[in-house]
């Protein structure tokens, strides 16, 4: 199913603009992630697609060719996975998964067959006899997913599906969720504030900030060609390089750095993995902190500007705190970005 939003905005009764009028379309079978900090309007946008919030007048939501803007949630045929999973505590696991099918008034044998099919798809058969309260966080998440998918919804909506889990579980379940969503072959939209989740699961990511979509694109595009400072900072923690400009050179306190282009009006940004410690680098900085993270060292560098810079150092040994090191930043590692209005961070 193709989902099309036209001019969809939301102003709450107290006058707060939660979502500015937005156009968005999601292709058949595509997994789109709405990514942004809390309060950016991503959950409100999801709830409007679900039919749980009513958009401001003038907006339109279409599923394929049918206008669903005025349909209440129970008639929209959406599957929804809530942050808390919202499993029905008074029902068994099977009754939870079969609830949507019962609402469709399907004959009993067909309900049973479809429930078994979905349980198998979500690898829940071993737990099918358990009470909902006896399930672990990961199992609950799969039950919520199975319950949402069983009535064959036109679109699957997930609201922070991983944030209720322990950090240790989250990474494993993230990959599992990505794999399950591909297996369902369904149009899906999922909301998250965690950039790694969005990049790992989605085909396309829409980065939201203050009720607007700042940039929408494939994960690689967002990461490598962010359209604004906010996107660069939120996706991949880009850091600003401070200094005065002299043509294609950036004059920093630590030395002169060649930029990829003169690009007046744009500011240079860099990511931790693009700062290299090497003996003949053009910049000099003091090592302030060294943190060993297993795959690499995270090194805090001082004397470079008002904000400290961090460098991912992949080597067997790290410099000592207090040592002076020379740094280089290759031109292709520097992103020249506009100072967007929305980036008040």
């Amino acid at each position, binding site marked *: 199913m193709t989902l099309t939003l036209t001019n969809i905005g939301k102003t709450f009764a107290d006058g707060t603009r939660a979502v500015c009028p937005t156009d968005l379309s999601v292709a058949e079978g595509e997994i789109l992630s709405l990514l942004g900090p809390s309060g950016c309007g991503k959950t409100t946008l999801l709830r409007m697609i*679900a039919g749980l919030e009513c958009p401001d007048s003038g907006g339109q939501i279409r599923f394929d060719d049918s206008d669903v803007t005025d349909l209440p*949630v*129970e008639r929209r*045929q959406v599957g929804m996975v809530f942050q808390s999973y*919202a499993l029905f*505590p*008074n029902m068994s696991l099977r009754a939870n998964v079969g*609830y949507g099918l019962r609402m469709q008034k399907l004959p009993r044998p067909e309900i049973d067959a479809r429930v078994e099919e979905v349980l198998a798809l979500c690898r829940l058969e071993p737990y099918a006899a358990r009470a909902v309260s006896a399930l672990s966080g990961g199992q609950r998440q799969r039950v919520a997913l199975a319950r949402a998918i069983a*009535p064959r919804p036109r679109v699957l909506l997930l609201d922070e599906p991983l944030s209720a889990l322990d950090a240790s579980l989250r990474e494993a379940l993230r990959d599992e969720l990505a794999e399950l969503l591909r297996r369902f072959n369904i149009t899906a939209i999922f909301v998250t504030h965690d950039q790694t989740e969005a990049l790992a699961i989605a085909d396309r990511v829409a980065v939201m900030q203050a009720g607007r979509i700042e940039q929408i694109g494939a994960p690689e595009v967002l990461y490598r060609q962010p359209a604004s400072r906010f996107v660069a900072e939120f996706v991949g923690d880009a850091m600003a390089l401070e200094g005065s400009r002299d043509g294609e050179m950036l004059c920093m306190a630590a030395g002169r750095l060649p930029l990829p282009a003169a690009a007046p009006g744009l500011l240079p940004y860099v990511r931790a993995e693009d700062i290299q410690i090497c003996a003949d680098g053009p910049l000099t900085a003091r090592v302030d902190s060294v943190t060993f993270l297993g795959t690499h060292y995270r090194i805090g560098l001082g004397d470079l500007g008002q904000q400290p810079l961090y460098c991912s150092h992949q080597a067997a040994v790290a410099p000592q705190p207090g040592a002076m090191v020379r740094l280089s930043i290759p031109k292709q590692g520097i992103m020249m970005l506009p100072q967007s209005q929305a980036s008040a961070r």
Partner: protein
Amino acid sequence: MRLTRYLPLGVALLAAAFLIVPAILSILAGITANYFRGLSSGLTLRWIFEVWELYAGSIFLSLWIALCCLVVTLLIGVPAAYWLARNPGRMARWLEEFVSLPLSIPGLALALALIQLYGSHLGFRTSWLFILTGHVLYTLPFMVRSVQAVWAGMDLTTLEESAASLGAGPWQRFRDIALPGALPGILAGALTVVTLSIGEFNLTWMLHTPYLKTLPVGLADAYASMRLEIASAYTLIFFVIIVPLLMAMQWASDRARRLTR
């Protein structure tokens, strides 16, 4: 060391005795042949039979009113609690206070107000429905609060949104999600309402007529105009009815609390 260990125990035992000795004395009086001659006069069930003959009508009236009161508070209280749980906000808090108002007004004042309002409607004034009206006024807040507390503790909104996304309409959501979830609260509320209605005296004392005495009103009547043994036997019967209800109430509200945690 010893003293600090046994002193609290002693105090607790004393307090328990303070509460329980009058009850035991009263029960004993109800089965003693002649209380003024003491237990040496022998034990008997005669007084209990006599109470039954004199006051069976009061006992059944009380049970009937308690049952009707339960039905009415369920029919009004559960939907009211549902509305309050679904629409939290200033309006709901205000309404909740309003529903709870009868709790803070003395039963006597409430009864007087009812008599002022309905006293001239003689048919109603002399009917058991008049007493029922008073009991519903007094017990409704207990039902509303008990049910509402369970719904407030279970994130009703998200559960219902979840059911709605699966295709359930408003009535199906209430029937399949809200109502089963509230059962422990409804049970606790129901037991409270029945217990309070059976034991209610203040209000009923004002509202009753000579032909309509409830169980506690009959008890007062027995103490005022019958032998002490008969009144005491009456107390014994009252205990037999009310204590199991109290225990069930305790159990049900414990269960409701565990579920909402």
